[in-house]
């Protein structure tokens, strides 16, 4: 069953001072099956973040629809939206978005606290997650006391602690060095093997090569998609790079 269906999504940003309207998305359709790991690629400014923000209900589309588990998220009333996001979706951002006022532990607890869970239950959920992500012994530290990779792993823990249907990530490796990026992608791959559905935006071919399927966006539309289909990562990475080349070449020709 498709867990996520995106149908003919359009997004037009109102004209900025003196400029033209920006057609960020002109008709994006795709679906994500339960247990899939999908990466979305495209050049800078191609509308990847816009797409993710709409799927995440941060933003409203100009046209089209987004169905999560068969239900349109656009129909969810404003006052239920926060709770919906908290319960069904998990996010990882490029710049971590951890709060400096909280320790890593409290940052991870934040969505659960907002959902009104008690602290015993929260601790019970955190323990296996923190062990799996290798952050068990730095939970008491503040974001400014740990490395970028550790911050991002804490952010992943925060995204996963609510047990979301869909984990979304916008350039999660964008602010990481290559070692930390590789470690994070291996975590994603493992999480996906354990059944987590993941939708990730990236412009890194290496990061995308961990996914089971890669969608390419160009001119506000899905341009092409390739499946990993059991191939090894090197091959996958090569094919992604070739497609990216085709993508930019196509722009010129």
């Amino acid at each position, binding site marked *: 069953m498709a867990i996520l269906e995106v149908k003919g999504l359009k997004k037009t940003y109102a004209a900025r001072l003196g400029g033209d309207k920006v057609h960020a998305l002109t008709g994006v359709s795709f679906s994500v099956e339960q247990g899939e790991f999908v990466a979305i690629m495209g050049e800078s400014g191609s509308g990847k973040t816009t797409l993710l923000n709409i799927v995440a209900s941060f933003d409203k589309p100009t046209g089209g629809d987004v169905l999560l588990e068969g239900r349109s998220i656009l129909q969810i009333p404003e*006052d239920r939206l*926060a709770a919906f996001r908290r319960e069904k979706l998990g996010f990882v951002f490029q710049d971590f978005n951890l709060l*400096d*006022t909280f320790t890593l532990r409290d940052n991870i*607890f*934040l969505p659960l606290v907002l959902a009104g869970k008690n602290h015993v239950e929260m601790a019970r959920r955190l323990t296996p997650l923190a062990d799996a992500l290798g952050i068990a012994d730095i939970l008491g530290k503040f974001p400014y006391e740990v490395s970028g990779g550790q911050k991002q792993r804490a952010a992943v823990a925060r995204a996963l602690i609510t047990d979301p249907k869909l984990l979304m990530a916008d350039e999660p490796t964008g602010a990481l060095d290559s070692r930390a990026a590789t470690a994070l992608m291996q975590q994603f791959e493992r999480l996906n093997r354990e059944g987590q559905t993941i939708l990730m935006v990236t412009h890194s071919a290496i990061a995308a090569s961990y996914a089971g399927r890669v969608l390419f966006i160009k001119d506000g539309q899905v341009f092409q998609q390739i499946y990993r289909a059991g191939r090894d990562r090197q091959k996958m990475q090569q094919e992604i790079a070739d497609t990216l080349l085709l993508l930019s070449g196509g722009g010129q020709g």
Partner: protein
Amino acid sequence: MRRFLYGRLALSNLIKNRRLTLPYLLACAGTTMMLYSVVEIALNKGMLHLPGSAFVQSLMVMGQLIVSVFAVIVLFYTNGFLIKGRMRELGLYAVLGMEKRHIAQVLALETLFSGLAGVGLGLLAGMLFGKLLFLLLLRMVGKTAALPFQISLPAIVQTCVVFVVAFTLILVSNLRAVGKARPMELLQSAKAGEREPKTSWFAAILGLLSLGGGYGLALWVKSPIEAIGIFFVAVLLVILGTHLLFRAGSIALLKLLRASKSYYYKPDHFISVSGMIYRMRKNATGLANICILCTMVLVAVSTTVSLYLGVEKSLRAQFPRSVELYLYDQGPLGSVRLLAEDTARDHSVAVDQYAQGEMSRMYADLQGDTLDYDGVAATVQRCYFMPMEAYETLGGERQELQEDEVLLFRNVGAYGQDHVVIETEAFRVKEELNSFPIAQKEMQSVENTMFLVFADETAMERAFCGRDFERFIYVGFDLKGSEEDAAAFSSDFYERCQADEAIQATLISSDSVYAQRETWIATNGGFLFLGLFLGALFMLSMVLIIYYKQVSEGLEDSERFIIMQKVGMSRREVQRAINSQVVTVFFLPLAVAVLHTFVAFPVLSKMLALFFINDLWHTAFCMLGTIAAFSVLYVIAYFLTARVYYRLVTR
């Protein structure tokens, strides 16, 4: 050409940052205006010729000192906010290849421009509104003379000197800040220092002790004389305690709350406790300063209002009868009465409540039920002894007394014993009086006073125990008629007494409410003016600090709240979290200031007793009124500055 470039850059910086520079400019203009006005009043030659104005003018000299020092501190302090907020921008210049001396040049020009604009504007406003302030002062001190409020060069020069000092200090500190920093640090410094504060239990406990000590002194102070000495020690302790508690105490408390898991992990508490810990580190000093400024406003205004509105009470306390004379000798008593009645007729007023009586006065130390003439303890009382006959002519009700019986009255508190032993002679207190014809029952007083009424001269002589005490005759009466006529009577009567040889020869002193009223109104009006004036100045600086606090917090918090929305907080929840934090942080200083002021009540009311304001209810009423009025202004300041904050946070 180059210089021109930097000048333009400086100017455009000021305009670009107007959200920050404009309030600063206005504050600068405001303090300039106030300083110029008060200096002009202090230097005003016309005031010298008004009777009773010398004291008012000396108050203004004091005011001018306070305003000068305060203006320098406030401008220096707010500049700190400004420069901290701009370190990034300056860092960017450095990264873009501007040399430090060029940055310094731009900063110097900015300081010069904003200083010139602020002081210029302030002087102008001072010349315009100073006259209004001056008229207000004259009204308050009860003078109707139309005095010119000139534009005086010395006042302008003196004002400028103060601000030149202020801006030089500001410039030096800004240049030092830039000189010390490296480009990367400049870029990062807006983000720097975001570590969680350490809990300093030592500072928290010291703060508690200091505040407790200050409170203790203020609460247990016994006599008005003691109050003066103690007041300043208490003030210093409370200021220290407030600072330490805001800084360390608040964080210690919040961390205790955080340690309690079942309390902390609730949606409301979670965000506010952690937010407060973070916020207190940066703002504790600012909040403590706001709190102290609030307290200063409340204390200054409520005491001076109490003084001003209490002039009549204070006169009543000093003059049980409106006109009073003290004579050595019984001889001219008859002619005094005749003279009073004649003069009254001439001024179409009537003599009322005429009272006279001979009595002796001495100091004695009261220990338990024993009065000791040689005592020098702090418990010393002023005592008046008189026979029943004098009590009657003073207006008391005649009672039959035995030789060993007395009537007793104390002005403060009850005597409450049925015996009094004077040195060695014992008397039975037949009755403790609740009122006395020529004294007031006071709730507190500078001097504790006792009146003893004996059966006759012989009984009184026995109480003297062989000593010879000063004797005098009291004459006092009220006047019925209009205030003006009564005032005219009083000065005429005084002259006629001086003219009458028989009276003049035996007159010790004479005084009247009417002669004193002018002085007291001038004095207390001067105090009120200064109190309100300084109150306004403190208020101005307080609003300024609050404004900058809101702006700097708004900028920071907007990032935090965006993140919170991303991880699943609704806009409403975010709004609520913002609200509860802002309200707590905003009203905490006011709440603590009100507490400080309440605790200061005993010591303040005792100090007011030195000005013969003995009515605790009056003082309490003035204090509550001031607190209410101030709170309204504070709430207005809240709404004005909170708007700025919300706009920043929810943009």
